């Protein structure tokens, strides 16, 4: 699975970081930072939830090693 985040769309809701802080963080301005673009298999469900919960639809996910 790959994951990326559009920092322009991000509204700093923090839903992704609450879903899994292993994959998502916030910088000093509160904007999303993706810590790993290829999350571990056990993180995949949480990353999918993060993408679903993101209010500004800033998170993109897909199958395979890279994308976005």
């Amino acid at each position, binding site marked *: 699975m790959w994951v990326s985040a559009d920092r322009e769309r991000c509204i*700093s809701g*923090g*839903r992704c970081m*609450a879903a899994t802080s292993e994959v998502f963080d916030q910088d000093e301005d509160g904007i999303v930072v993706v810590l790993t673009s290829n999350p571990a298999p056990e993180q995949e469900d*949480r990353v999918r*939830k*993060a993408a679903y919960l993101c209010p500004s639809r800033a998170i993109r996910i897909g199958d395979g090693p890279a994308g976005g």
Partner: protein
Amino acid sequence: MNAPPTTANEELFAYPQDRACPWQPSPGYQDLGRRGPLHRVRLWDGRTIWMVTGHTQARRLLADPRMSADRSRDDFPAVLPRLDAPIFKPIAIIGFDPPVHDVHRRLLAPDFSLKHVRAVRPQVEELARRLAADMLRAGPPVDLVQAYALPIPSMVISELLGVPYEDHEFFEAKTVGLLQAKSAEDAERAGRELWDYLDGLITRKEREPGGSGVLSRLAGQVTEDGDLTREDLLRIALALLIGGHDTTSQMIALGVVTLLEHPDQLAALRADPGALPAAIDELLRLVSITDVSGVRVATEDIEIDGEVIRAGEGVLVSSSMTNRDPAVFPRPYEFDVHRTVGDNAASGRQHLTFGFGIHQCLGQNLARMELEVAFSVLFEEIPGLRLGTPLEALPTRSGGTMQGVHTLPVEW
């Protein structure tokens, strides 16, 4: 721009309607929810708008850029008489569309980020323990709103903004005056008093730079031809001060009522404190304190579920009913603190109490933390807490959308 649609059809469902139970939507909304996801309802001024009770439809519409949140538009629906007051047109941030919305929200994002919220949590815990100790010293009966539910968020937002807490009786009373007003005139009067107060406060911050809090920081960034004018800052200050304490205090109050009226759930939570964060989201889902996930006006025709929302038509998304869409929440009317634990943790946060889309609540992480602290400290320090009045006799708010109680007598 199209003329706002109006109708004299008295048969249409009249919005809003009061709750019969503090944590359940009005019986009339429950009936609408059983009939489908989209409804036509009639407002106080005779205008007809759409009311959304379906979760999927709500998410789609709240994230749709063709739906405007601009309260200064002539076709933006005033859901209650008080929302016709000039002070509400516009409300900072939630009442603006991009690009202004995005610029102002970005200015505030660092102060409301999850990291910042986690950093201030120990201070909020200390505050809650001090208030609980004061209650124990005073002895029962106590009004939990004044003694605990209100001071927690009120002190937290004062500190965060740089508003002197010693002025709390003034700004709390005027906020209630503004939010519970039955007419536009009363809302405007209370709102202007708050406006003048904040104007004076910001003037002092401009004269003496370097003070603490968000307003002190932003006062140094004001430019009349830039991204943040002085009027913008005043509107932001007003929105944050109001939004920062009233709904959270009422969520603490009604959350306590809900927990006390479900002793099995309270016991389950005491036995498993790790379930608290998920239980907070379950309480947020159930109580749906504002009862509204968002109000918008369509700027273009939007097709949804075989219906067409026409340009110029108003849309109100019900949080209490979208939070009870059985397709998303099985046994939707049940309070179950274990609904969202374990692997299912994130899915329990699907409730739309904080809205969805770019206007999702700026203070949601702060509110969640305050609620976690408020409930855990209260039931730890005063384990024998009980209602001091029968549930039916609670003085609940009426005639509006924002739920709450005027007072909450408790004993132990």
